[in-house]
């Protein structure tokens, strides 16, 4: 298993993801620069958190149009594993790989704290191993998940809701949604940071319960 950690100007969780994958998850990982167009040799894609292009337009909107994202779209279309955390989730929504959008937190403030997440399903490669609530850090100003009533119904009907905020709906997301998947379940986006919770020393190890998915998948 080799994970491509994308890097855009303004990404700031790219190194965290790379280190967590190599050191704690125990898989191979390397950076892929935003202007590259190949994912040859990679088995999964990590779209990292941060402020790609400063998030000066809508969060993730510029990065969604970077050359590498066309390749990621093809990769996902072929069933490849893709995960986006925080700004990565925003990029995936902006690039059409995931439904819905992420807007300003209901309290209008950036929030950095731990949250308890309830898995809403165990469908698909990402969620199969997540059999209990997990605690992960969040750090975002624009993490309120919103979507149309039709999209919400689709998400529910297709079992695409991955995580809900369990204790408090910290950012005011629709249906307390913290993470969603595409219809086929190979693309996951979530606002919390699993890469910040892979060792006891820092943030606990609940992130590993999710990221172990990367070791379960047959590669080739």
């Amino acid at each position: 298993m080799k994970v491509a950690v994308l890097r855009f100007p303004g990404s700031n969780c790219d190194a965290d993801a790379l280190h967590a994958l190599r050191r704690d998850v125990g898989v191979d990982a390397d950076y892929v620069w935003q202007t590259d167009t190949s994912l040859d040799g990679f088995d999964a894609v990590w779209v990292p958190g941060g402020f790609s292009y400063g998030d000066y337009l809508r969060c993730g909107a510029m990065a969604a149009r970077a050359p590498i994202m066309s390749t990621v779209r093809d990769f996902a279309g072929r069933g490849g594993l893709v995960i986006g955390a925080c700004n990565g989730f925003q990029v995936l929504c902006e690039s059409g790989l995931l439904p819905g959008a992420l807007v300003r937190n209901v309290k209008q403030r950036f929030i950095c704290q731990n949250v308890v997440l309830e898995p809403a399903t165990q469908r698909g490669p990402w969620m199969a191993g997540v059999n209990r609530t997990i605690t992960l850090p969040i750090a975002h100003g624009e993490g309120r998940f919103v979507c149309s009533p039709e999209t919400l119904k689709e998400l529910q009907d297709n079992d695409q809701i991955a995580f809900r905020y369990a204790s408090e709906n910290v950012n005011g997301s629709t249906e307390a949604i913290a993470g969603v998947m595409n219809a086929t379940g190979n693309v996951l986006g979530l606002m919390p940071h699993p890469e910040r919770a892979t060792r006891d020393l820092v943030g606990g190890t609940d992130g590993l319960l999710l990221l172990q998915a990367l070791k379960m998948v047959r590669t080739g």
Partner: protein
Amino acid sequence: MGAITPDLYLSMGLTHEEYRLLTEQMGREPRMTELGMISVMWSEHCGYKYSRPVLAYFAEYKKAIEGEGLENAGVVPIGDGLGVVLKVESHNHPSAVEPYQGAATGVGGIIRDIFTMGARPVALLNSLRFGSITPGQEDGATVARNRHLLEHVVAGIAGYGNCVGVPTVAGEVNFHPRYSGNPLVNAMCVGLVKTDEVASASAKGTGNPVIYLGSATGRDGIHGASFASVEMDEEGEDKRPNVQIGDPFAEKSLIEATLEALQTGAIVGIQDMGAAGLTCSITEMSAKGGVGMVVDLDKVPLRDPSMTGYEIMLSESQERMLAVSHPGREQEVIEVFQKWGLPAVVIGHVTDDGWVRITRHGHTEVDMPADIFTDGCPTYYQTPVEPAAFLQRQAWNPDDLMAPDLNQAWLTLMSHPDVASKENIYRQYDHQVQAHTALVPGVGDAAVIAPEGTSKGLATKIDGNARWTMADPFAGGQLATAEVCRNLACVGARPVALTDGLNFGNPQRPEVFWQFERAVRGIADASEVFRVPVVSGNVSFYNETKYADGSTLEILPTPMMGAVGVLERAEQRIGMGVGAGNYRLALVRPTGTEYVQQGLGASLYAWSVCGNEDGVPCRPDLDAEIALQQWLPSLVERGLLAAAHDVTDGGLAVTLAEMAMASDRGLMVVLNSAVTEGLSRADAVAFGEHPGWVVFAYATESEQEVLASCPGALAVYPVGEMTATQDVVLHLDELGTTLTQTVDKLRAAYQRAGIL
């Protein structure tokens, strides 16, 4: 621009004598651009003309100015081939005028000081002071304005720090009416560098290309450094064009591009363009390297091509660097910056004659020796004058204080904005980016990070107490230094380096200069005794407001001490709370303490509960402080401590309350006569501010081992235990008094202050 008149140079902040000195050094009248550049380089902000003689009290500073020159911050080796750098910097005046941008660019500036040395910024801290935010303490409009400043300063720090990807791990904020009109915003950054990869800030090598890196230059911040070097007046808002605008996205790219470009080995020297922008970087890099530079301003990336040479040289546009590369290798640097979407242009070359020659549209704008800008700056030693009030303060007698209901006083202290929960502030900061924060805000006496590439932990904290410094500046300097080191020890770290943020009023006033001189002496003294060097710092003078009626309000003298300490193993760090299990509590204090004014002079309790701001604080026992700095980490390394917390603002009762809240359980402490000997008042035991007091928790079975190892300079007393109840009880045997609260009540008070 017209001819140079006295009115012109006076308006730029130069005195007649300084102008005369300049023309004498130059042998002629300066050109307009030369005068503008000199006015910023000779401002206090850049030239340190009032502070240099006093800063020479710091051994490292003295060594640096006599030796290789001042780099942006000193590098302290911590083993594993790594060095730590740290620096604090003020952005007070910009933040008073435009709080969001002022604070944001303060963060940006201090981060650049760190990565320009080749270090990766790994932690941010901040130390803030505002006027009162409590209704009734000042008039309504002032309180509202102070709240506005607090809210927007915090938003600015969050907006910049969160985007740039450096965790904001610790800080402090205090409130006092004396900061209304002139808030203090000091930002600190900690960086890590491989000791064999430290970048130089000297220009070297005749003919070497000089490269401009980063954002284009605009008209923002022209004369910002001079602005920082005068008092604020009620017209301060007119200075808004002097405030720079930050772009944290550009800064993030600049960090990555700079560190990547340094890895190529093509860079000879590099410096950020902070205060005074191109002026500072060109003249300082030249002076440091003993070389000159030829620079063509037509090549500088500009936001507006109509900018004059004067405007380009004086702009303080943010997120810019200046580098000198090896000959023929400039393209390697340029390519890295282009990859990150940043301008990178050769604008000149290094010469061997020590002169700076700058042209715009083919006309000479500057043609003079580099060292006039730096070494030519005069220094002044004001004669310090001890104010009469200082002696009166020492004569203060705490018997004048009426002791109120102690249980109520306890809650009042918990809800005082200086003590109360800062959660609404630090929740707005990303304190976990870089995924290495091993002790987050609110959990311990200092933050701890566990950086990639080492098993060591770095503890860091910034601290200062202006109430104490106002009362006794020498004690204030010592106390701030002792407290920040004690905080590191409380999480298990051994202090290795200090940085000082020195915020004072107008140094031309002998009493202010006295405050400054005494405080610096106190810091230097403590630093020397502790053998923890002050490796960097910042001086901010003229922190006062002039009112239309001619009156002036100057801030409390406010030295802020930042520090970094090392834990051999990051995972051993401890906080101030314990989990489930049986834990006993011990109180440690210096042996044979002599209490000055019962520890109540200039205390938060005397001020906020009794309405008395008189008296002086106890000076710290520096030998006991060192013993503490060594003993606590040694206990932590042996796995014997579960939690530790020092006694400071609000005294022992506040310390115990915070330990109980962090543990989410009650505790019972009984102090017998041996512990309280010398203290004759119950409020002096509960709320007195006794330097060197620490409470720690340990597993019941390790009691023998813990107590037996106590060094001679310290006395340790088992005083109680964490309980299974929710009651927090402090019983004073000798004085026949018991203070009791529940964890919930304390927490309600702690969270009631409504900070944001």
